Each structure stands twice: as C-alpha cells, then as structure tokens.
C-alpha cells in the first residue's frame, strides 16, 4: 500500500483547513444515521453540534448536565450552559438522565475525549503516573465510566501523541475492548453491559475503527497526514486497513459552520 499523495487528498475547491477542523468534521460525519448521542465536554461538544447541523439533523443531543433534545443557539464552552436548556425537549435531573436515559439503554452513541487510550480503546482520564502520587492529576471520570459501559457504542475524539496513544494506560477510567474483543464480548455479556464498546476513534490524523480482534485499525487518513506521522504519534505499531481511505476534506459549508456559527472565537479549531 502506497502513501496517499497530498494532491489526491483534498478537492481543489476546498479551502485551507486546520488539523483540528478536519478532526471535528470527520467525527461529525461518523454520526450520520445515529439517533441519540451523549455529548461530552470539549471536542465532542463541537463535533456533535456540527453533526446536528449537517449529516444528522434528527440527532437528539443528551447532555449529562440534564438536557435532552437540546438545540443550542451557540456552541457552549461548558456542557452546562443556559443555551442548551432554552428550547430543549426536556430538562431533567441528573438522576433521571443517568438512570433512565443512559443506564436505561436509550443512548446510541457516547462521545468521549481522553487523556490516554490504548490499542483496545481502553481510556484513562484520571491520572498520569501513580494514582496516589500522580505526575498529572486529570479531571477523572465524570460520566465517562458509565457512558463507556451503558452507551450502545462509544466514539472517541482526541489528538494523537506518544503521550496519549500509549501501550499501557496508567489508569483505566472507561473500559474499552479490555484485553481484546473476545474477552470483552464475554465480560460484557456476563456482566450485562448494554454497550458494545468503542467503535470509532477520530484523531487529528485519521479515523480508526476496531477490527475483529478488538484492536484499533486506521481506516482513513486525513488529507495532509502521513503514515509516518501516524506511527510517530502512537505508542504501538498501529494496524492499517489494506484499503486505506483518504478522509474527504472539509467542505466549504462544514468550515463555514465551524468558523462562523460554532466556534467564532476559535477555541476548538486552532
């Protein structure tokens, strides 16, 4: 398989775009056909809102803060914001949201970010280093632990780096495919999880799905990215699809929505 050449990657009519913009657009497109999405803080927030304005107009946004069917008039900095309530279908207590919506099995996609991820999609958002004496104290689970277990599937969006795509995560906050697909399927069945685990990881370099062994596989590389860059920013030898695709570049409309409507201050797209 040859490296896709830069010239093939983006249609000539598309504008220049940042790696973050490509990542957000790629993540949004993966939501096509999904019905109910649990929105996490940060990059998931903008990707999901872009999806609602493009490929998934009937997507129902669930914010762990308690809003269902939100139609935010602006992109909120936090996942708790008055704009996600005004005009929403329902505003409920967190007990109800976590009990009936998430644990009750109504969430199709849980959309998470992470500090560390391993090849099987297990996620750490708790600490770097030892738990009791951490080098870096990260925010912790929030809802990520129960989202990974109860959402029907999990999407992950995060930038690649050797520090984040690691052979061994320092702490398992959210279970992915554990030590592999077979074990994970057995444990999910035995323990009565509703979730089938992670199904896609979107990074600033490409799009990964999970193969039969439960391991991440690069299925699409973003225009401008190279396999060398991919390998340099992953702590293991990544699997690459035989027919590696090139992610279609952001369209003019996608970029307009991100730049003018969702992120006019440029907080996410730099």
């Amino acid at each position, binding site marked *: 398989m040859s490296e896709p050449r830069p010239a093939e990657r983006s249609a000539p009519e598309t504008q220049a775009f940042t790696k973050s913009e490509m990542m957000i657009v790629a993540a949004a497109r993966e939501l096509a056909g999904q019905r109910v999405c649990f929105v996490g803080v940060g990059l998931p927030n903008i990707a999901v809102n872009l999806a609602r304005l493009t490929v998934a107009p009937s997507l129902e946004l669930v914010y762990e*803060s308690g809003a269902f069917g939100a139609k935010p008039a602006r992109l*909120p900095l936090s996942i708790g914001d008055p704009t996600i309530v005004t005009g929403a279908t329902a*505003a409920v207590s967190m007990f109800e949201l976590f009990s009936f919506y998430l644990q009750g099995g109504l969430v199709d996609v849980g959309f998470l970010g992470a500090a560390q991820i391993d090849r099987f999609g297990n996620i750490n958002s708790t600490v770097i280093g030892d*738990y009791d004496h951490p080098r870096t104290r990260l925010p912790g689970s929030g809802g990520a632990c129960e989202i990974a*277990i109860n959402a029907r599937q999990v999407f992950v969006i995060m930038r690649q780096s050797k520090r984040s795509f690691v052979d061994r995560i320092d702490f398992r906050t959210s279970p992915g495919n554990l030590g592999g697909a077979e074990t994970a399927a057995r444990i999910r069945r035995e323990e009565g999880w509703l979730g089938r685990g992670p199904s896609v990881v979107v990074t600033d370099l490409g799009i990964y799905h999970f193969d039969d062994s439960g391991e991440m596989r690069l299925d699409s590389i973003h225009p401008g990215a190279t396999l060398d860059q991919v390998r340099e920013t992953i702590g293991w030898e990544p699997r690459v699809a035989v027919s590696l695709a090139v992610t279609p570049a952001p369209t003019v409309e996608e970029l307009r929505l991100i730049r003018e409507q969702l992120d006019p201050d440029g907080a996410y797209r730099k």
Partner: protein
Amino acid sequence: MSKVTSMRDAVAEVVHDGDVVAIEGFTHLICFAAGHEIIRQRKRDLTLARLTPDLIYDQMVAAGTARKLVFSWLGNPGVGGLHAIRRRVEDDDPAPLELEEYSHFGMVGRYTAGASNLPFFPLRSYFETDLPKANPLIRPIKSPYGDETVYAVPPLKPDVTVVHAQRADAEGNTQMWGLLGCQKEAAFAAKRVIVVVEELVDEAVIRADPNRTVIPGLIVDAVVVEPWGAHPSYVQGGYDRDNHFYRDWDAISREAASTQAWLDEWVYGVSGRAEYIEKLGPERLASLRPSGAAPSGSVDYGIYR
C-alpha cells in the same frame, strides 16, 4: 415562620469547621456567594463534596478551608485543570489534599442513597475499571435475582448543602428551572440546608405551581436573598455563565501568589456579594443578561371546591 437571614449569619450559624459541605449545581446555579463567605469566615477542615469541584472549590481549597474533596470531575469545563487543587494533589503544596473519587453517576447515587436513607445505591458502572481499586468504598453487590453483580456506592449525607435557586418563599420552599443537577438529592441528604435565591417571593407564587417546587421549606434552615449570588456560574433566565471569568481563572490560578492576590481583592477585600457585584460593574453585568425572554407559558391547575 421566616427563615430569611443574611449570608453572613447563615454561614456563621449553619457551617462549622470540620463539616462535610456540598455546594451543588451542575455548572448551573453554583453558589459562589456562599463559597466566598465560607472563605471570609475562615472555616477550616471542611470536606467539600461536589460532582464538579469547579472554580468555587478551587478557590475554597486555595483559601485553606478544605482538607478533603469528594468528587467525580475535577476541572474547569472547556478550559483545563483546577490549578490550586492540582498543586495540593500533585505537589502537596502547601499541604496534601485528600481525595475520594467517584463517577458522576456514583455521586448522584450517593446523594440519592443519602436522601433516601438507604445503606447503599446500586448502579451499572465501574465494571473492569480501576476506580474500585482507587476507592475501596465502591463495592460489588450481587443481585438477589440471578447471578448478576453490579456495583454499589455508599450514602453521602452532607452536614450542610447549599443550593442556589431562582426563587423561594420565606419558609424556604424553593423553585428552580433549567438544569437541575442533583440539588434536590443533595438537599434531602443533608442535615442542614441553606437556600440562596435571586428573588424572595410570596408563598402564593410557589403554591401557584407546586410541580415546580424542587426543595420544600421543611428541610431548609436558612434562606438568603443574594442576587447575582451564582456569578460566574449562571441562572437560567437571569444571567449568563461568565465564560470570560472561567477562562481568566486559568491564568489567575496558575501561581499561588496570583491566586492569593485574587482572593485578597475579590473575596477578603469585599464585605459580601453586594460589594463584589458593585465591583464587577454595571457593564459586566449587562453583558451577561440574556438577549431576550423565553417565557415558559402558564398552565392551569384549576380550582376544585
């Protein structure tokens, strides 16, 4: 019987050194005014419980009020970390801070068990994670029906829960709208409750819409009327989240010295919320007003004699 009092008196009488204190509110209705008064009164050795410690606990930790945090997400949402807390956790600077960590649903379950006087709350979380190892209070429990095992969390019963809301009557019957978080559960779980409101209303306003009542006066010890008491958090229909301050705090809190300088100016340096608001200035406040009204509309309960 009116329970209306000043923030100073409410905190002096209701909050004691060593208490477990929960100032709840998931991004919405976080009572910064109460947190600042606790700092001013130099309360000590508090255990601070909140799903999301947010800036208010970063400030309270920086001010030395706390010895321990009970939480599920430790960050400045959309911005980054909480630096005063991280200094204490990562560097024991100026002193260690004990952590007791759950997930969001675990914390919600803990308050629910506390409010319901249950010895535990069961949930489908924590499977195959390191959280039960990090916190041995997260324990497996076998269902009495079939072989299934889920996890349990223990009840959380704060000594004091502080709730900010749009309105209450003088007895403490409290109504809120927008994101409800887990304020209800945290209040029912608590031994003592302080309600802080934007507006004190007549009992008749509450009784006109009983389904809107979140907390009954029955469990409330003090009612404080403190407009803008949630800033830089927000009040649905009242004022917006001050995202600029959330971003500014990231820089302010990166060093202990600048953090203390901020506390000196904005907390110790003012007598209370009224002065803080005056200091913020009318332009800042005006910029946080909603751009228009979005009325709920009225429903009819009917008169039945």
